[in-house]
């Protein structure tokens, strides 16, 4: 099958890294600086910021393609290049057919004009002929759900209505290539569902869809292939699920780095925490586990002076406030009679029912009377669930990594009502 969009070693450098509103004075000063550097025999520093760095990928006709990555990775820049809003600094982009873009939707509709005027004028600005618009007018109005306010200036609309209008016009442009940037972040759930239906119908009709979103479950559900951009470079490309997994791994890793920075146990006058490790059933030290694995959390404490009956508690969180689970000698009993010198405390978590992401471990140690902290409640370590073999649905990876972290074994049944 033929490609609809093809990036060939595309680099984009935004020239202005300076003040947002350039002035003649600033530019002359910069030019003088560059000239000065050249006179002294130095290469002037390349100005600006590199948004895309030698990016290549291909989108086929009839394919839904995702571009994912953190903020500032170059996703929107890539879309702007495809729709000819911006031009590459180097490299080449091949585009086959009419492109309709939804970048910063809503900014194109004019607040002083009515919906009717906006559809006519904005439609023509987007490249529709008058005949096209006449044919599509009712569909657009119906899709935008604006039938009753068609002759009211758009500035009187709610922001949701404005955005619906902004999406609906390009959605009926009949593009060969449809470019969507974060459009699904807006509108109520019903309208979002309509937008997704419209997009998937366009793909089913043989159009190409390029989709940029932070809504990973939408990416996983809608897109077949994709690319993961990081700092303007291609980090992964291939089937959407695989790319998504690489992305989620990266998110986990950066999350872990942040957690690691947070973790620096405060010393107490009674106890020092010397090591925290997680181990599998075989006793091997590990960081990553699967849903349902047994996990041994091993703590190494050094007591400054002999302690009687210290109560150890371990909590698990996924970064949100509150524990997902608490394992505590205050609840379970089993506190050692006396601790002297260095001891290892192991807590066995059986069949951990957690879905893939990074989890943080918290710990405290209470005194003999189970009141008063010997070791303050604080984060001490992290482990990661990397795989959930039980999940098979169309948005399994994204949902399991972003929604409800606890997995409860369950079954579904659907039966007719009598």
């Amino acid at each position, binding site marked *: 099958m033929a490609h609809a969009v093809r990036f060939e070693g595309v680099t984009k450098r*935004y*020239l*202005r890294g300076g003040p947002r*509103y*350039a*002035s*003649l004075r600033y*530019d002359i000063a910069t030019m003088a600086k560059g000239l000065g550097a050249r006179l002294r025999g130095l290469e002037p520093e390349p100005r600006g910021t590199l948004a895309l760095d030698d990016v290549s990928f291909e989108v086929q006709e009839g394919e839904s393609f995702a571009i994912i990555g953190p903020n500032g990775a170059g996703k929107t820049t890539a879309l*702007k*290049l*495809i*729709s*000819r*809003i*911006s*031009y*590459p*600094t*180097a*490299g*080449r*982009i*091949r*585009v*086959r*057919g*009419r*492109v309709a*873009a939804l*970048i*910063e*939707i809503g*900014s*194109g509709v*004019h607040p*002083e*004009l009515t919906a009717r*005027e906006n559809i*006519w*004028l904005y439609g*023509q*600005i*987007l*490249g529709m*002929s*008058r005949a096209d618009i006449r044919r599509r007018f009712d569909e657009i109005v119906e899709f935008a759900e604006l039938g009753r306010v068609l002759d009211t200036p758009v500035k009187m609309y709610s922001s949701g209505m404005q955005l619906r209008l902004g999406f609906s016009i390009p959605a009926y442009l*009949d593009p*060969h290539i449809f470019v969507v940037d974060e459009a699904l972040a807006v509108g109520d759930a019903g309208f979002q569902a309509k937008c997704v239906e419209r997009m998937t119908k366009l793909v089913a009709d*043989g159009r190409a869809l390029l989709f940029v979103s932070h809504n990973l479950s939408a990416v996983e559900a809608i897109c077949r292939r994709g690319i993961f951009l990081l700092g303007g470079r291609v980090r992964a490309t291939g089937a959407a699920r695989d790319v998504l997994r690489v992305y989620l791994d990266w998110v986990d890793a950066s999350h872990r780095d942040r957690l690691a920075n947070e973790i620096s146990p405060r010393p107490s006058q009674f106890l020092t925490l010397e090591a925290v490790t997680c181990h599998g059933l075989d006793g091997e030290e590990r960081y990553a586990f699967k849903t349902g694995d047994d996990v041994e959390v091993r703590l190494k404490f050094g007591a400054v002076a002999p302690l009687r009956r210290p109560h150890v508690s371990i909590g698990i969180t996924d970064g949100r406030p509150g524990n997902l689970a608490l394992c505590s000698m205050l609840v379970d009993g089993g506190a050692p009679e006396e601790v002297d010198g260095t001891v290892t405390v192991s807590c066995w978590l059986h069949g951990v029912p957690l879905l893939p992401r990074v989890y943080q471990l918290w710990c405290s140690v209470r005194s003999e009377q189970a009141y008063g902290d010997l070791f303050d409640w604080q984060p001490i370590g992290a482990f990661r669930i990397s795989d959930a073999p039980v999940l098979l649905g169309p948005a399994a990876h994204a949902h399991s990594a972003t929604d409800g972290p606890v997995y409860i074994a369950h079954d579904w049944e659907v039966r007719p009502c009598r």
Partner: protein
Amino acid sequence: MPAPVELVIEGGPRPHVAQSLRELWAYRGTILAFAERDCRLKYKQAVLGVAWAVLQPLAFMAIFTIMLGKLAKIPGGGVFYAAFSLSALIAWSYLQNAISFGANALLADGALMRKVYFPREVPVLGAILSVGLDLAIGLVLFVAVGPFLGARPSPAWLLAPLLGLLLAALAAGVALTLAAFNVYYRDFRYALPFALQLWLFASPVAYPLEVVPEGWRGLYVAVNPAAGVLDGFRRVLALGELPDPALLAVSLAGTLVVLLSSYRIFKRRERHFADVV
């Protein structure tokens, strides 16, 4: 769906002028859409509405006629001063409004430029076209009140729209360069009203072209192409004569030079507009 054509987007060589013009022709509907939008927007929520297009030249004509015509005794170039000044003012206010509106068009449509592709001159030309509504209203006004001010009704009046076209070309020539620089340097936005005022005093609006010594007129019109067109308006509307063909030819040549070089400047910068605006 017809088999789509492949478009290659590169950072390299800029398209040739002929190629740009072909593309512009394909976007003529979009120019009209911009013009229609600007016309609709202009008088929304203004109680007097289109009457503004009539009031402004009439008010200027009244002041000019009293202060310059009666008190300062500036000649009307063979016709009552009121008729002369109204004919020149209608033309001048078109030129002035078209240039300042066109020069700011890219800033006004910055949000659209950052999300939709169209040749970037499209909103500028649309803005200049939309001001044409005011010119049309002004010409109708002249046809209605001109005879009472001393103008001679004549079939030559039919030439006025053609002169208007020449004026639009000149406005486009000036506005395209200004619009391109406006994107980068907002300084131009502040300099423009000032520059237009200087230009007004340098053009035969308050005084007839005959004030300039005959031997210098050709050079004057070559340096200021607006002068030949404004004089054409005076001859056609106020005097009911044909315009001076030699002066008009000089104006036309000057206008084409301005327009073409301005278009090249604009197209050379166009690709960076969306990154900067």
